[in-house]
């Protein structure tokens, strides 16, 4: 194909590899679960992830025994890694819902090969996130007091607090994401049931598939339900990260009390989410030979979404800085001064480098097509988004209104161990998912093959 000057030929490329049929699509994806021997690299990766998960369990155990004093939190920085990691993980989860729900509503068919993988990522990310609000309680064993159940103490949670809003938002988000993912799986579980050779596998997949037989009437209701779920999940995902941002913005702390937070957080969530999807998809695609389904065009689109949301995040940073100065408020002005030139200043500059400067490379088409570069930039963005949450939480807390309250925050080994441990748990769950479930939506890929409807 002759490359025309200025025309990006990747954009006009196919969404699915040439020569694929309903049968070959089915065979490739089911055989990755049913027949293919697990590649040695994946087993090695799973072993590392499992060790890190054990580190997590040790950290949680020690936390239960000794209490939150093992972390580096103090007064004034009473919220440290727990909230940073909560926001980081929930943010990562948002890309899955965007790919599944929002791209469905926008009729973007390129979502078909990545949505199941991204949704699984969302479920596991939200699961990891949900650990932190539970763990960071002084008495995690009475966490259920925050659920509005009838009780003998006549206790109610504080419904006016964003922390309670979080409980409802995260629970709803996890439940809806799980249902969306599972409903999407049912027809493919039927495919697994019919393709599996061993009796016990047929039974397990069969039970999960609930007797799906591909009836046109069922498909009609199914599509309707799926569309409705997408329509519900879209405002949900926006509301969830807005509610998370309310954890900060409904307070009065300089650097937190900003109306830009909800849209800025949501854009940041999509940014980090797509970065994590790319981090995962690039190696898996290579290891499993999925280039016919997750094509270069998909990678290009995802990189562009990342770039766009990165620019929104950059706008958020610019507005924070601008309004800190424009407000004339001495506390706001000092907050911005402290961020850039205070003791944590190096983190802020690192943030600008990793979140704004380096991702601008994505403007270049050749970088977007190069999987190594794309992977490295995605990792950089993930790190950058973590640094962003660190800057927001720690720099605003450690120096607020009264100088006599100022202090420094130093994370401890247990802060790091818990965080790295959740990364291990996440990877473990992703490996299990890839091993046991069809990681690409088979029936949605079949829909990409052209046929004449009249």
């Amino acid at each position, binding site marked *: 194909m002759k490359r025309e000057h200025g025309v990006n030929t990747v954009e006009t490329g196919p969404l699915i590899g040439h020569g694929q*049929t*309903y*049968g070959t699509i*089915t065979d490739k994806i089911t055989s990755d679960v049913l027949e293919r021997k697990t590649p040695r690299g994946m087993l090695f990766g799973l072993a590392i992830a499992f060790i890190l998960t054990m580190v997590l369990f040790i950290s949680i155990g020690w936390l239960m025994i000794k209490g939150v004093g093992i972390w580096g939190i103090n007064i004034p920085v009473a919220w440290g890694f727990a909230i940073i990691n909560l926001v980081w993980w929930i943010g990562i989860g948002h890309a899955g819902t965007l790919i599944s729900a929002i791209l469905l509503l926008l009729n973007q068919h390129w979502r078909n090969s990545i949505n199941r993988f991204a949704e699984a990522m969302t479920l596991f990310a939200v699961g990891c996130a949900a650990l932190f609000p539970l763990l960071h309680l002084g008495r995690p064993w009475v966490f259920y007091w925050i659920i*509005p159940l009838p009780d003998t103490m*006549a206790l*109610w949670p504080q*419904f*006016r607090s964003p922390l*309670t*809003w979080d409980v*409802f*938002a995260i*629970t*709803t988000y996890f*439940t*809806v994401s799980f*249902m*969306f993912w599972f*409903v999407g799986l049912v*027809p493919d579980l*039927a*495919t697994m*049931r*019919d*393709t599996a050779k061993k009796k016990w596998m047929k039974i397990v997949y*069969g*039970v999960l598939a*609930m*007797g*799906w*037989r*591909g*009836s*046109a*009437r*069922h*498909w*009609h*209701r*199914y*599509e*309707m*339900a799926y569309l*409705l*779920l997408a329509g*519900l*999940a879209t*405002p*949900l995902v926006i*509301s969830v990260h807005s*509610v998370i941002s*309310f954890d900060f913005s409904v307070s009065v702390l300089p650097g937190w009390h900003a109306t830009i937070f909800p849209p800025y957080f949501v854009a940041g969530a999509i940014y980090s989410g797509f970065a994590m999807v790319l981090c995962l998809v690039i190696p898996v695609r290579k290891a499993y030979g999925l280039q016919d389904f997750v094509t270069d065009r998909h990678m290009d689109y995802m990189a562009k979404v990342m770039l766009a949301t990165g620019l929104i995040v950059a706008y958020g940073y610019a507005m924070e800085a601008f309004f800190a100065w424009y407000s004339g408020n001495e506390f706001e002005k000092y907050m911005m001064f402290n961020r850039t030139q205070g003791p944590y200043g190096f983190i802020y500059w690192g943030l600008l480098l990793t979140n704004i400067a380096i991702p601008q490379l994505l403007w270049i088409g050749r970088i977007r097509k190069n999987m190594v570069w794309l992977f490295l930039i995605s990792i950089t963005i993930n790190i950058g988004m973590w640094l962003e949450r660190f800057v927001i939480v720690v720099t605003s807390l450690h120096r607020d209104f009264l100088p006599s309250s100022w202090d420094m925050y130093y994370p401890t080994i247990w802060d790091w161990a818990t965080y790295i441990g959740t990364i291990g748990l996440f990877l473990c769950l992703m490996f299990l998912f890839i091993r046991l479930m069809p990681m690409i939506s088979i*029936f*949605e890929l*079949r*829909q990409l093959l052209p*046929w*004449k*409807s009249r």
Partner: protein
Amino acid sequence: MHEPRVYGLMAEFSGPEQVLEAARQAYAKGYRQMDAYSPFPVEGLAEAIGFHHTRLPLFVLVGGIVGALSGFFLQYYAAVISYPLNVGGRPFNSWPSFIPITFETTVLLAALCAVVGMLMRNGLPRPYHPVFNVQRFERVTRDKFFLCIEATDPLFDEKKTLKFLESLNPTHVTTVDP
């Protein structure tokens, strides 16, 4: 009443265009008790066999409304009736601060209704169905399409319906045991 000795007759097709055309012809011929099966949703197929309207969106709407009222009432009850707290004379029914939770419960119940409603209306989980008796039906989740005319249809006649189905050029026609 005469007990049907078969569940129906099933014709197999190799592509969505064929099964769509077959369904249209069957409907035009007057058959109503039938179903089409495909490995992915084929646009127009449900309409071709006469299935038009699903009440699922209404069910979801009602679920959403109930969710909204429940969420709001929960907070209202706690803040106004059960345990009102006088915090600087602020109103007990501080409804703006009740909105985030109300929104979440709306979405939660609506989504639950969508999923449960879809499964219930589809009659799932249903591990046994006569169509699974056809050996070749296994291919429905891979790459084959089927049209099954059921014996309960008033126009069903084993010989006449068989001839009709064969006229649609399927790859196979099978009798489905009940």
